[in-house]
């Protein structure tokens, strides 16, 4: 059992949880994720480790409500227990000194971006971060990101915070202004697709972190497969980060809808049980 130590609400739909998991806190690196199952009836879902405190033996998760499990998770309180939590999973981000790094985070993707931004900064890079979301209340972790970035640009679709526009507008501006050596993009698949098309145009090596549907997270089921450079890869063990220029984002987007009907049904069932 893994106890929730602290819960903080970032917005109506995004919650930060600090969870007791000492082994994982010790062995995790930026880019790693965990898989959790809330209780006996729960499903296994992957979440990135946004931060860890080795001394306190805790890891920090940021979850956005999208379906049954994430909703239930966001409603948990300090003191509650998560039945199963396994990790760290995936390959760690290749953090190295390259010069200038452009980090693009969309929506809840900012959570997994945070440890990467921190890592690149600590490795001696100049780090420029673009935070993007639909509106002001969906921009998360801004202060934490600022701490590890030389410059932060906030973009919202509706202009309610920072500048109005898409992540790509902010990114292109930077690329035109100064030399960017590497780019990292994490967010909705569509956002990563267009960021990647942009950086490809300018020949900037780009990593994207994929949020495929997963079950075990150990390479056993193949639910998380993606096409990268024409080859089938498993996101949980070969990723979650891949060379963005090689990812088949269209296929990824189709696959993310693979259980849509079943999930919708489960969600409706769930909502019924809560209202009754």
């Amino acid at each position, binding site marked *: 059992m893994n106890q929730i130590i602290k819960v903080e609400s970032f917005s109506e739909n995004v919650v930060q949880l600090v969870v007791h998991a000492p082994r994982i806190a010790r062995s995790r690196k930026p880019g790693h994720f965990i898989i959790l199952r809330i209780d006996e009836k729960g499903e296994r879902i992957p979440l990135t480790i946004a931060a860890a405190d080795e001394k306190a033996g805790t890891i920090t998760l940021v979850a956005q409500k999208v379906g049954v499990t994430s909703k239930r998770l966001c409603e948990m309180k300090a003191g509650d227990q998560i039945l199963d939590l396994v990790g760290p999973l995936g390959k760690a981000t290749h953090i190295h000194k390259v010069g200038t790094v452009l980090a693009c985070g969309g929506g809840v993707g900012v959570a997994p971006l945070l440890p990467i931004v921190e890592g690149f900064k600590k490795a001696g890079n100049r780090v420029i971060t673009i935070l993007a979301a639909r509106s002001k209340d969906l921009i998360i972790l801004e202060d934490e990101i600022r701490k590890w970035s030389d410059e932060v640009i906030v973009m919202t679709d509706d202009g309610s915070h920072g500048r109005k526009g898409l992540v790509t507008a902010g990114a292109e501006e930077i690329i035109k202004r100064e030399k960017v050596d590497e780019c990292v993009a994490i967010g909705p698949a569509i956002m990563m697709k267009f960021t990647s098309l942009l950086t490809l145009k300018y020949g900037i090596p780009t990593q994207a972190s994929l949020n495929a549907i997963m079950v075990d997270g150990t390479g056993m*089921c193949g639910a998380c497969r993606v096409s990268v450079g024409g080859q089938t890869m498993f996101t949980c063990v070969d990723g979650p980060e891949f060379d963005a220029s090689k990812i088949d984002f269209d296929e990824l987007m189709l696959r993310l809808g693979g259980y849509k009907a079943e999930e919708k049904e489960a969600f409706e069932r769930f909502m019924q049980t809560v209202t009754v």
Partner: protein
Amino acid sequence: MQEYLKQEREQAWRVELRGKIKNKDRGLIERVKMPEMKAMKRVCFQNKEVNLGLDAKSAVRESQRCMDCVNPTCIEGCPVSINIPKFIKNIERGEFADAAKTLKETSALPAVCGRVCPQEKQCEANCFYTLKLKKDPVAIGYLERFAADYERESGQIAVPEVAPKNGIKVAAIGSGPASLSFAGDMIKLGYEVTVFEALHEIGGVLKYGIPEFRLPNKVVDVELQNLEQMGVRFERNFIVGRTASFDDLKDEGYQAFFVASGAGLPRFMNIPGENYNGILSSNEYLTRVNLMNASDDRFDTPVLRGKNVAVIGGGNTAMDSVRTAKRLGAERAMIVYRRSREEMPARVEEVHHAEEEGIEFINLANPIAYDADDKGRVKSMTLQRMELGAPDASGRRRPVVIEGSEYEIPVDVVIVAIGVSPNPLVPSELPELKVSRWGTIEVDAESMQSSMPELFAGGDIVRGGATVILAMGDGRRAAAGMHNYLQGK
């Protein structure tokens, strides 16, 4: 071994039993039929066992068929050399608990093996009846299951004696049959044994792969409780190499490791359209249903239910998947296999059960492409017909493509069950570990010791996809090998 078998055979009670019925009369008894739930009924339940088990009367009658041979060839067919006539004769004289005890001398999980061993290729293939009389063999598997079930249901499972603790910590990685039998042997020798499992349940394939209609979870759970009572510790949600490294575990005092991490990596065919929605590995499908209870509405995990479900492959995994699909409501549940029925590697009994349940067999056909609707959900598959050519290295006739024979069939779920590769997690964490071209860990065949002296391995990670009983045999050999190594240190 021969001497020991002979001595046991000369025990007074067995001599007396042999005298009671003439061999000629034994040979006239017909092989018992396993009572089973009717096909029409059983396809409505994901979790009701098909085989109901023998009652005491028919078990005793079946045991009378066994002639307690001077040269019991059946034993040669059993990978762990169970003393088959001894346990069967114990059933004949009504000492069912002793029969179970005999099984436990060599097998850690007889209730499991009695259900899932490919007996027709192992013990029963080597029975005197099969070899010499050309008759149906003694139903060794059914009797094994009977004795083990009797013991479990009597509630008087003998917890084996455990040697005084020697204070030496050892770890088993993975919790499938190889690890469980390893853990049982090591704990008896006095070691402190911890079994680490990546998933949230103990049992490996026995839990996440083989469905309940073939192997009920409670059968496995009782064995697990037994091991726990003996002092084996289980750590769930713990991936060795990630949650903690081998070095971390050494620092925590573990002196040797048994790697039994299985062959968990599913293979795909790499044909066009294979990543469409609705096409998944048998591992994913069976894990959703067996580990996550996805077929039960009260659980959150979803599973795809299809009208036309095709399962690619002809092994046990394929049979388990297709029969699961039937139980989840498929109108057409089909096996697509590139060779003929005779070449299917699945247990004969499972193929037979699948047939009774209305599974369609499309033999001598292979998919070459898939097509999808505009949402990316698979809607049809293109099959190519095959014919059997000359035998290949395995002695089976090689399937050859018939050019121009392509045709399409409608499908909405496709399950790929064409085999698995060794789980790369552990080898990728240990660059100095010697692995084969296929990714299996190389070990000494007797001691199961790898190129790293403190590391032993067995089961599917060493053999590729094999069987439960072979994995268990490896676990036992590794325990002996490790014991030797640690005592000599």
